[in-house]
């Protein structure tokens, strides 16, 4: 079959099972846009900014475990994708990005809309390609999908010169396996490491499991639960690990780290064994590395060998697929109860409950914790929530317990404001039968709110909850704690979000008191399509607890108990 490069792109996408792509056209990618007209099986979503396309592909991928696809033109189109690629890279999300490039003969001449896109994106992609020969095109696309989804997943970019898109060749799809000599993701652990890990687990008095994104991506939820239950080992979650263990499970002690549950942080510091599964000891979860978990032996399992001993020196480091490795370790793990240890953790948890703002708040304004906890209640805790970055993100992590994997989608590693709303649109395309809520700050929403037009054009059934505190709240919090309350460049004069929604053609509602929340959720659910709810909340709230950057993990700034003074 004689096909053009553009048609080959579409044929390859079809064979990868792609049903939706997010993109924006322009000169250098126009041949491929034209070829799309012959492939109606693949739905193209026209975004309003290429950053949105990259986050939508990301949200789609996080929600489904499949590869998300975005597409853009050369130069500015491609550079607009960069934030989304970096976001996906940090959180190991499989994306394939396709960009147009100026014709081969023009490369290197500073041609109109020419950017060295493969050069620009080397640090923010798992791999990338500049297609210099149409004969390589199909194979490279196949390889790109393979690399994106296998091993430690990540974004892969394919830059295709316009003349390659136009060129025609006799097309033969490269059936068969990918052969990559330098790419062999690890799978199972060797027996001696399995034995060593088991020994440590069976001997530990105060063990704790730190479960991360890897558990969800490798589908090891069941194995994790079995390990935890069999030996009664408490499980603490990273932000991206939320959903790896149901948060109402008695052994799940919630999130760790800078704004984690105090009980988790204390438990880590007092533990005698850390079993780190698919997490990477980011500085936001360890605090001061020098004083981190000083009494603990450490087992670390991760698919990426370069994560082992990177931040934290470990006693047993295993590079492998979590599901396989936990299943290898399990058979020799003895039943255990650890009653003293679990009781000690209970005490910390009780102390935290006494400080919980949800039960102690005496003001009559709306606070974000109430909004998010009520959202949890009125969505039966079953929604897919996609957050932006800031205080509302941490409050969602604290007050919206998740029970299932891949139901909290959030930019953890890069902390990309503007991620939430477009990622929610992508997630809805991936899981159309589930309710999807974008929980965003008033600051971050304004970074990508142009995608309201996309949501309306596509009638995407996402609900937007803006937690409007009139501030870049998280930065304001740092200014309050660490910059003597000099609130510079954090107060915002915001647009009227409800009127904006209306202008975009989206129903909206403003909520200013707690008794309106349930009605608002019902209102949102009564419309099939995008709906915006603005929650006007207390302006100067603080997310507690907080481990100041670089401080010891258990040296948290805590919310005072009733009648107690801030220490």
């Amino acid at each position, binding site marked *: 079959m004689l096909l053009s490069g553009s048609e080959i792109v579409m044929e390859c996408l079809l064979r990868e099972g792609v049903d939706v792509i997010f993109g924006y056209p322009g000169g250098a990618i126009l041949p491929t846009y034209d070829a799309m007209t012959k492939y109606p099986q693949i739905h193209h979503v026209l975004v309003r900014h290429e950053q949105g396309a990259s986050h939508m592909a990301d949200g789609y991928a996080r929600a489904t475990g499949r590869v998300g696809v975005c597409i853009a033109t050369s130069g500015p189109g491609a550079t607009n994708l960069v934030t989304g690629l970096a976001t996906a890279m940090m959180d190991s999300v499989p994306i394939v990005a396709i960009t147009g490039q100026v014709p081969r003969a023009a490369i290197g001449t500073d041609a109109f809309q020419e950017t060295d896109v*493969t*050069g620009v994106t*080397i*640090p923010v992609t*798992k*791999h990338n390609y*500049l297609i*210099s*020969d149409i*004969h*390589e095109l199909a*194979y490279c696309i196949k390889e790109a999908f393979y*690399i994106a989804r296998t091993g430690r997943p990540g974004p892969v970019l394919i830059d295709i010169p316009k003349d390659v898109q136009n060129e025609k*060749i*006799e097309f*033969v799809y*490269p*059936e*068969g*396996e*990918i*052969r*990559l*000599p*330098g*790419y062999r993701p690890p799978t199972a652990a060797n027996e001696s490491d399995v034995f060593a890990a088991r020994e440590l687990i069976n001997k530990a008095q105060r063990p704790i499991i730190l479960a991360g994104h890897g558990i969800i991506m490798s589908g090891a939820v069941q194995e994790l639960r079995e390990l935890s239950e069999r030996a009664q080992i408490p499980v603490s979650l990273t932000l991206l690990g939320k959903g790896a263990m149901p948060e109402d499970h008695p052994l799940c002690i919630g999130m760790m780290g800078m704004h984690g549950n105090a009980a988790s942080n204390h438990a880590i510091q007092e533990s005698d064994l850390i079993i780190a599964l698919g997490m990477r000891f980011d500085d936001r979860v360890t605090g001061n590395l020098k004083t981190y978990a000083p009494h603990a032996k450490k087992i670390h399992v991760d698919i*990426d*060998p*370069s994560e*082992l*001993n*990177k931040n934290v020196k470990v006693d047993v480091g295993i590079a492998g697929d979590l599901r396989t490795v936990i299943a290898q370790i399990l058979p020799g793990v003895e039943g255990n109860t650890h009653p003293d240890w679990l009781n000690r953790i209970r005490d910390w948890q009780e102390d935290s409950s006494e400080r919980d703002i949800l039960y102690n708040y005496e003001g009559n304004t709306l606070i974000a914790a109430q909004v998010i906890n009520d959202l949890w209640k009125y969505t039966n805790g079953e929604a897919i929530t996609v957050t932006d970055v800031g205080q509302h993100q941490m409050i969602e992590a604290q007050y919206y317990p998740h029970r299932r994997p891949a139901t909290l989608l959030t930019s953890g590693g890069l902390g990309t404001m503007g991620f939430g709303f477009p990622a929610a649109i992508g997630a809805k395309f991936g899981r159309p039968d589930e309710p999807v809520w974008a929980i965003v700050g008033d600051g971050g929403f304004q970074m990508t709110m142009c995608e309201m037009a996309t949501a309306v054009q596509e009638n995407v059934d996402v609900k937007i909850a803006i937690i409007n505190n009139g501030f870049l709240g998280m930065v304001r919090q740092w200014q309050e704690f660490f910059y003597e309350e000099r609130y510079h460049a954090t107060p915002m004069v915001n647009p009227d979000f409800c009127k904006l929604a209306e202008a975009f053609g989206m129903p909206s509602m403003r909520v200013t008191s707690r008794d309106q929340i349930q009605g608002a959720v019902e209102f949102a659910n009564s419309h099939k399509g995008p709906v915006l709810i603005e929650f006007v909340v207390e302006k100067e709230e603080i997310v507690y607890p907080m481990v100041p950057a670089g401080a010891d993990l258990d040296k948290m700034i805590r919310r005072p108990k009733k009648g107690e003074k801030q220490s």
Partner: protein
Amino acid sequence: MNNNNPSKQVVVALVENKPGVLNRVASLFRRRNYNVDSLTVGRTHKRHVSRMTIVVDVARTDVRQIVANLYKLVNVIDVKALTGEPHVSRDLALIKVRTDDVESRNAVTEVCDRYPARIVDIGTKYAIVEITAQEDLVEHLIDELRPIGIVELVRTGVVAMGRGVRILDTDYEPVNHHQTTGDLERYGV
């Protein structure tokens, strides 16, 4: 080499001989803040495979981290840290020195006699000295020539190879994309 400097380590990598691979490696070292002493790259006896020798300063970074991160690059076929294993390493330098009087000319000749070095070009003003040796020997020679008057100097950086049966090789054969027949064998089927 470098037994006298334990913070230097030699890493060798087999990489696909494709455009941009050097860029990826350089980008990795910059991105991860690794300290590169020297990096050489050249072809091997296999057309599709190039080989890099990288000398890194590991005062700050564990060499295992560097190896693991290099291996993560898709185009890197194999990586090995050579330090700690018996190996041969060589650095080549061309050194242009002043030879515009009898003393300097004699001095250069005398120094070269004591090293595995030779004079490869000589004129009334300058001579070019070539040395191929272990890095520390090259450095000693440079130190001895310096007082005579070095005006130009170039070094290749270290290349290294494990001794004896320690063989770093690959049977990698690239896919031939130009075969457009239905021949599936080339995809490993």
